[in-house]
């Protein structure tokens, strides 16, 4: 049987009436917390042309978050910056090669990732369903805030031109890209591959692949909590955050993606407010979303808008 055209898919995600006040309140809490950022040069990871720093900063719930920050050694003017968000199970990137091309680069490590897991460490599988019954205590509240505070860190850096900051990532990195672009409107450009956390409660019905399968596991054990889980996810779903995205953005997907089903990308694109938005839908590709070829498009996109 042929699969229905993914572009015809209709999402079941709905926007809670208090969605904006929910996020405004979280942002207010986040803004009240000083970053207390520290930067420590890592001589072993630094090279002839790039300095590598291990960064730590404070985030929601007094959690200390880590990240890698790379700077070209040869710099005289304020730099454009690119933030790299990690996938669900992948290690935070140490983006030296892009720093060598003249960017300040940051590899983010939100809570639960190695080096950011001393206080909160739900594990994998585990993160996706940690406190999923309650939007206020759900682990992704802090996780999203950890991601956007990378931008706050860059705003504080004198070597960075705060008008030229781009965000990017694939899978969960794609989701955090959308989150950051939505909640930090000063971001200049965004690139999201195979975006995760988009149409979440649709996706759990479209795939049996982890990480979404964590929610199916949870609901098999706790079927009575379905309504609560849907309620929570309506506050965190990137489809509902997309209305706030106003910067130039590219999204790329694989039409045979069994991890983050391509169906969920179409309602996302419809909700993004930016008039400068482009979807690259690659037939013959899965969760890789054809990054092998698309990476050049992403680099050209950022070079055009940030350099």
């Amino acid at each position: 049987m042929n699969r229905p055209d993914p572009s015809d898919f209709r999402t079941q995600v709905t926007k809670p009436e208090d969605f904006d006040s929910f996020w405004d309140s979280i942002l207010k809490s986040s803004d009240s917390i000083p970053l207390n950022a520290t930067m420590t040069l890592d001589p072993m990871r630094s090279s002839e042309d790039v300095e590598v720093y291990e960064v730590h900063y404070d985030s929601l719930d007094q959690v200390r978050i880590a990240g890698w920050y790379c700077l070209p050694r040869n710099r005289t003017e304020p730099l454009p910056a690119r933030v790299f968000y990690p996938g669900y199970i992948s290690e935070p990137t140490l983006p030296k090669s892009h720093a060598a091309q003249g960017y300040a680069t940051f590899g983010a490590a939100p809570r639960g990732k190695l080096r950011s897991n001393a206080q909160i460490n739900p594990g994998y599988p585990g993160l996706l369903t940690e406190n999923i019954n309650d939007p206020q205590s759900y682990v992704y509240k802090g996780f999203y805030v950890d991601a956007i505070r990378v931008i706050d860190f860059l705003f504080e850096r004198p070597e960075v031109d705060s008008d030229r900051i781009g965000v990017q990532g694939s899978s969960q990195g794609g989701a955090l890209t959308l989150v950051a672009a939505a909640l930090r409107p000063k971001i200049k450009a965004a690139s999201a591959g195979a975006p995760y956390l988009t149409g979440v409660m649709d996706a759990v019905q479209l795939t049996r692949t982890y990480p979404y399968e964590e929610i199916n596991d949870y609901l098999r054990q706790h079927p009575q909590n379905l309504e609560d889980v849907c309620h929570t996810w309506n506050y965190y779903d990137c489809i509902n955050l997309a209305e706030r995205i106003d910067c130039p953005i590219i999204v790329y997907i694989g039409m045979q993606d069994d991890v983050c089903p391509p169906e969920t990308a179409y309602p996302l694109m419809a909700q993004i407010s930016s008039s400068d938005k482009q979807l690259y839908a690659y037939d013959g590709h899965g969760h890789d979303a054809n990054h092998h070829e698309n990476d050049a498009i992403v680099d050209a996109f950022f070079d055009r808008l940030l350099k």
Partner: protein
Amino acid sequence: MNKPQDFDQYWKKVEDELASIQPAAERTELHLRSAPEAKVYGLKLTSLDHYRIFAYFCVPSGKGPFPVIYRLPNYGSVVHIPPFEERCKYISVALCHRGQRLSDQPFAAKYPGLLTSGIDSQRNYIYRSIVADCLRVMDYLVSCDDVDSQKISLVGGDLALFTAALRDSASVLFYTPSLFYKALHKATATQNYPLEEFNDYLRSFPESIDQISQTLAYFEPMNFASRVKSEVMLMEESEGDANDLAVSFARDIERSGSKHSSYQDGVVLAEWLSKKLQTGETLVPMHWR
């Protein structure tokens, strides 16, 4: 890459050390992860240095014995539970080697960092023990009543090749060269991790180049290939990318160039395993059909 004269003795010593340690297997069902189609167990075994390691061990519903897909881990702290479609049909196993999550007590690997941990000595290099972890699971598999011991497949990177070379029990190997194939040569052409770890190390300790080359010779895939007796599919980065590795095998092998698509490469894997293990219809995710 020269093969060290004591290559076989080096690995024989690892195997002997491992054989002297009781595996003390414990298999506990993880009810949260089990589904009607398959049960998921946490398997714990004792490996080299009496280190306790963890693996996901999944058993389909129904009557065994079952064919096996044993997935060797990639480079990174997290190992996924095997794919749903594999769990439905195969005993599917995913090892978390020492240092990876769930096998990270007392040693939690650093990323970056693991790849050069102890590299200044072939005796202390972390991958010597990691290879032993891989073998420990293989030995457990052949001891299980619910395993069809004639239909054990290994899937993964260099750790899968090493396991196939050091154990005869796998009938098929689906191998994608990863970290150790011409490692230092390939590192010179990149700033990307994990291979950049070698560059970082050599920038800090340039005097250690000879010792590092010597250590890595014990882990060079070309030095293992001739010992592999199972049927092999070599998945190359691009067609012809691993010619010298391909000719290192003692037997004829099949080869496929990656399409750089998790979907297309995944279908090649699923269909090849179905054919070689004679398991009938190939099960793949809905989006791949």
